[in-house]
């Protein structure tokens, strides 16, 4: 019996391990090796940390890196600020029979690809777009205004794209929040803000942290949205990785950038967990 069990474990575990090894570990080892290779002027391949040194010596690389990290954190925070009341409304305010409907409504935009969603925003916001058209028709504007190609537009797009990944985990933790805790706090003299910060957020922390990790990682690794909605000033670190691989044919440099991004995201997630006193196991449950 015991033997059989173990056999079953191997049977189901092997494909997973193979998948992890072949598709994730192996390519990353390849990338890691590549990131420490560079070419001398006469085209000979040598081992060298030059790709990493390059990153620190060239301000546009690390500035982009910092910018990407700061904006990703900002996007994560904004997504949270919007998602929490939304999730609260869905779980605690609205009649239960509408809950499913509202969640489907949230999900709806995700039935089309990110590209289509971004083009949707572009049709709305561009200078000759729908919003400008109506603003002029209604007399709010005399001249069409370019609403695309600003950092704020890019953040809007990123928050929109990330929303679901924050709302769903918060909804699931808030569902386990007993309404009487909120009422009890109210009864004991707490106002709305105290209830939010002392009862709702502490209870929802695991969901908030897991949502934040997902949103942060997705935003950090996003390529399409910053590129298309951010326009001429939208420097995003993924774009630099793409440029190294595709435009400059410098795979070694690209690999080094990729690794730095991996280190950055792991670091920020680790810091976030430390600060909120959560552990990863609790959060991914």
């Amino acid at each position, binding site marked *: 019996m015991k033997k059989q069990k173990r056999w079953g474990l191997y049977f189901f575990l092997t494909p997973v391990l193979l998948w992890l090894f072949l598709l994730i570990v192996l390519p990353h080892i390849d990338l890691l090796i590549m990131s420490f290779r560079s070419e001398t002027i006469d085209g000979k391949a040598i081992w060298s940390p030059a790709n990493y040194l390059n990153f620190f010596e060239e301000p546009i*690389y690390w500035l982009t890196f910092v910018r990407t990290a700061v904006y990703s954190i900002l996007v994560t925070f904004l997504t949270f600020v919007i998602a929490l009341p939304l999730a609260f409304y869905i779980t605690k305010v609205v009649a239960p029979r509408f809950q499913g409907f509202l969640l489907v409504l949230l999900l709806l935009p995700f039935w089309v690809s990110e590209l289509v969603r971004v083009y949707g925003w572009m049709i709305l916001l561009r200078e000759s777009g729908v919003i400008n058209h109506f603003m002029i028709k209604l007399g709010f504007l005399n001249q069409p205004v370019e609403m695309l190609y600003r950092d704020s537009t890019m953040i809007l797009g990123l928050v929109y794209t990330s929303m679901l990944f924050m709302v769903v985990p918060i909804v699931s933790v808030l569902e386990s929040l007993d309404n009487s805790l909120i009422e009890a706090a109210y009864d004991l003299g707490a106002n709305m803000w105290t209830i939010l910060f002392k009862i709702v957020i502490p209870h929802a922390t695991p969901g908030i942290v897991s949502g934040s990790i997902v949103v942060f990682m997705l935003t950090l690794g996003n390529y399409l949205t910053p590129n298309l909605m951010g326009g001429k000033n939208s420097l995003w670190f993924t774009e630099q990785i793409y440029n190294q691989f595709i435009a400059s*044919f410098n795979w070694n440099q690209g690999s080094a950038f990729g690794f730095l991004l991996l280190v950055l995201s792991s670091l920020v997630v680790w810091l976030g967990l430390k600060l909120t006193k959560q552990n990863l196991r609790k959060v991914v449950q």
Partner: protein
Amino acid sequence: MAFALGNVYAAEELSLLTWSGYAPQNLVDKFQKETGITVKVTNSNNEEMIAKLRATRGAGFDLAQPSQDRISSVQEKYNLYQPIDYSKIQSDLMIDSMLEAVKKSTMVADKAYAVPFCWGTSGLVVNRKFAPNASDYADILNAMYAGRISYRLKRPTLIALAFSMGENPFAKYSDAMAYKALMEKVGEAMIAGKPFVKNYWTNGDALLESMRSGEVHVAMAWDNGGWKLHAENPNIDFVAPRSGALGWIDTFAIPSKAENVDAAYKWINFMMQPENAAVFTNAEKYGTASAGSGQFLDAEIKGNFERCFPMKAIANIKWYPPVPAKLEEIEGLILDKVKAAK
């Protein structure tokens, strides 16, 4: 029996790595009817084509269509293509001088690697109503058109602006240091002109939409885009810049690990048939390397060339020579800097 037949039929497939519009559906259908071979089309661009083939070390595709200047250096370094067996090409179908030029520019160790397919130029696409005087690449940095300018953040823009500064970047291809200095100068000019740019376009259709809606008045783009718009709105047209349109030739090249080489040659010969080449040119407005297709072309196509390319302008076209290795890295850094600048 039927099963076996079906299998054989399905096995005949040509995997084509090309540009959007280079394999029109009606020609794909016609090819299948004539030869029984299905064509699987993957759309791409020069950089991605090289990256894709490099990732698989030349496998996964039977035929690719890189520009002629992007073949020899990557061939030397990564061995992505196999030499063309010119005996299998119906060379009488092609414009002789173009075939010879491509052979020469893709020569690596006495072997040539490509066959010409089509050609075109990069220059300005201008809305005459708003920018009647835009006539050279320098106008994409011109404050007069602030907020109404669009171009690609790619190497052709760097080269075009270098020409408009009176330099010859092609002459500096072999001298990396001099080339770098020139590119830095161009980069500075681009940064100075950045406030006037509306956006850096990445998708040709999106650019056409911006010009059509009047959001963009001056763009650096391919000639065919300008001609497509001219057919809709006579105010918009392609302009061959004073310092010379940049001429490119796109080719056929066979990846080193192609599985269906025979089908690749069949497609090349099929596409160069005058009437087939004309179908492509009539739709996409690019010039063709097929010699006898003139009689099948629409009057509009001839009109485009006559209007925009008088003899003097044709003589002034700057044809891309093969790009040596390492230049892309220099250009990449400059382009990153432009993107990062405020």
